[in-house]
């Protein structure tokens, strides 16, 4: 039984059971008494409750899961998924952004370009990674290497995990808006397959900046949103401009993997191990790897022009509006 360093509020009942089990085990060991029956009972209860809890998480619960400090990050998955990985650095203009990692990886003997937001685990690394908030240099590094991938016919795999793009003055001065826009424009026409997976927080412009691809998946407990729910609640009078009503905004914003799948924003939800990716990174990695492998096999069969036409059409179709002049007078999906 993996013990995460921090329990989320909705995990309280599980925490209680785990503590009971531990207490019983300790008591049994200390007094030489057999409590295995009771413990087995508790374990069954734990499993049942886990299933119940984790298959009914609210959008706000999922937000907590997506931000869980133990959640595996891009470099964790890279280590688990790829046979080898050589990280490459720099935008050849200004700097190297540690909030977006990029490099050459080997997936089942095939070379791929891997890009992804990178958060930090401890205080020091968090600062170094700028909490996963990318600067213009990050997007420009990704662009430079994607152009190389295009020339060498190497597919791109992108991991999305960022609260938002860096917005402070220095990022503004170096054109964070331009960098995000140019990266999306490039990806929309890159002549090689692009596979995208949201593994944690898919945070607004910072996320979509490297999330234009042929296949978009989300891990079961990740979120993908135009704005953090708290931010939305703090701005909209709908939620009384009240930062404490983030759970309401989270629900209204439809940010979960299931929501995004239903709306056609993503192609697939990748299930997580019971209790979330952070309880079994290795198993999650296997599921991600299986998805990448299967999806790439399909994409490799497409002629490049068809690949690009499909990709354009995919994003072209996103949006819901009423077009009275359209042949069928109903909302277009």
């Amino acid at each position: 039984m993996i013990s995460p360093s921090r329990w989320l509020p909705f995990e309280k009942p599980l925490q209680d059971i785990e503590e009971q089990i531990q207490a019983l085990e300790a008591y049994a060991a200390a007094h030489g008494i057999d409590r295995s029956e009771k413990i087995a009972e508790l374990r069954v209860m734990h499993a049942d409750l886990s299933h119940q809890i984790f298959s009914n998480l609210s959008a706000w619960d999922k937000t907590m899961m997506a931000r869980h400090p133990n959640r595996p990050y891009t470099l964790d998955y890279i280590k688990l998924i790829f046979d080898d990985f050589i990280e490459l650095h720099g935008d050849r203009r200004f700097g190297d952004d540690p909030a977006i990692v990029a490099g050459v990886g080997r997936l089942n003997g095939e070379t791929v370009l891997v890009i992804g937001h990178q958060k930090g685990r401890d205080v020091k690394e968090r600062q170094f990674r700028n909490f996963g908030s990318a600067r213009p240099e990050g997007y420009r590094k990704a662009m430079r290497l994607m152009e190389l991938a295009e020339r060498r016919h190497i597919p791109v795999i992108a991991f999305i995990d960022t609260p938002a793009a860096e917005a402070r003055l220095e990022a503004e001065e170096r054109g964070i808006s331009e960098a995000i826009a140019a990266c999306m424009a490039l990806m929309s026409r890159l002549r090689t397959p692009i596979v995208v997976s949201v593994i944690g927080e898919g945070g607004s412009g910072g996320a979509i900046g490297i999330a234009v691809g042929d296949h978009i998946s989300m891990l079961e407990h990740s979120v993908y949103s135009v704005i953090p729910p708290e931010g939305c609640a703090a701005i909209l009078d709908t939620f009384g401009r009240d930062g404490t009503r983030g759970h309401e905004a989270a629900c209204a914003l439809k940010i979960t993997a299931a929501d995004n799948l239903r709306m056609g924003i993503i192609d697939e939800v990748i299930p997580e191990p019971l209790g979330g990716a952070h309880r079994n990174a290795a198993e999650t990695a296997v599921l991600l790897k299986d998805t990448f492998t299967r999806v790439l096999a399909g994409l490799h069969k497409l002629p490049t022009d068809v690949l690009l036409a499909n990709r354009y059409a995919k994003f072209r179709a996103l949006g819901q509006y009423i077009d009275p002049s359209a042949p069928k007078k109903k909302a277009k999906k």
Partner: protein
Amino acid sequence: MSEPSRPSVPPGLWQKCPKCRALLYVKELERNLRVCGQCQHHFQIGTAERIAQLVDEGAFTELDDGLLPANPLDFPDYEEKLVRGRAKAGQNEGFIYGDAVIDGVPTVLGVANFAFMGGSMGSVVGEKVTRALERGADLNRPVVLVCASGGARMQEGIVSLMQMAKTAAACARLKATGNLYIVVMTDPTTAGVLASFASLGDICIAEPGALVGFAGPRVIEQNLKIKLPPGTHTAEFQLNHGMIDLVVPRRELRTTLGKLLSYLAPATAAADVDAPVAVAVD
């Protein structure tokens, strides 16, 4: 913002400049293209006025004016807000586009309406921007988009975010067909709009003093509890930092656009034969 000590201004006749506080005679202000004669502050203006200022006499035909917003997320309050936005802006949505002639050059022209929910990019705005860019690509015409936006439309959530990718892809497609794309940033041009189609102009022009930035300065100051130096996130700041080509006063905008279009996209120019071939995808 308002100064309670001043006498109230009779609506319609006089208007107060939000920058220098001068009381301006509305007719005079209109003659001046809604630029303060005292401090050159450029007022936000409506789409009809903007179009009239830019195109050759009567040379604008709106397209797809019937597109109406849906409520893809069933977001609470959204429909009420749309009703209010429609009333305030006097338009169906926050963006209009159509065929225009500017200085004799057939152009696809799009204009954002900040009065409609802050020019936020919902599905209709994203769709119309995309259609404008695709029309330019398909008819081999230059596209001019006049931007004004507070960013994403939160009530459309992730669907709004996807408009960034959709419009950026349409920009890339327009450019791949060899056609010219000019952006005019007006006050304010920010967030998801700046971080997508607004930053991708071959030539980016901004009006003087316009707020132009990814996050507004107030947001940064509040979130980080810092004080920014004055003048950040303006058209002039962005010019200094290499992000835009020109800051052009409103009274010169038509001339500048006309020259750029007729120099860089004369009507007689044949389709670009050397550029990479665009794949038809519609």
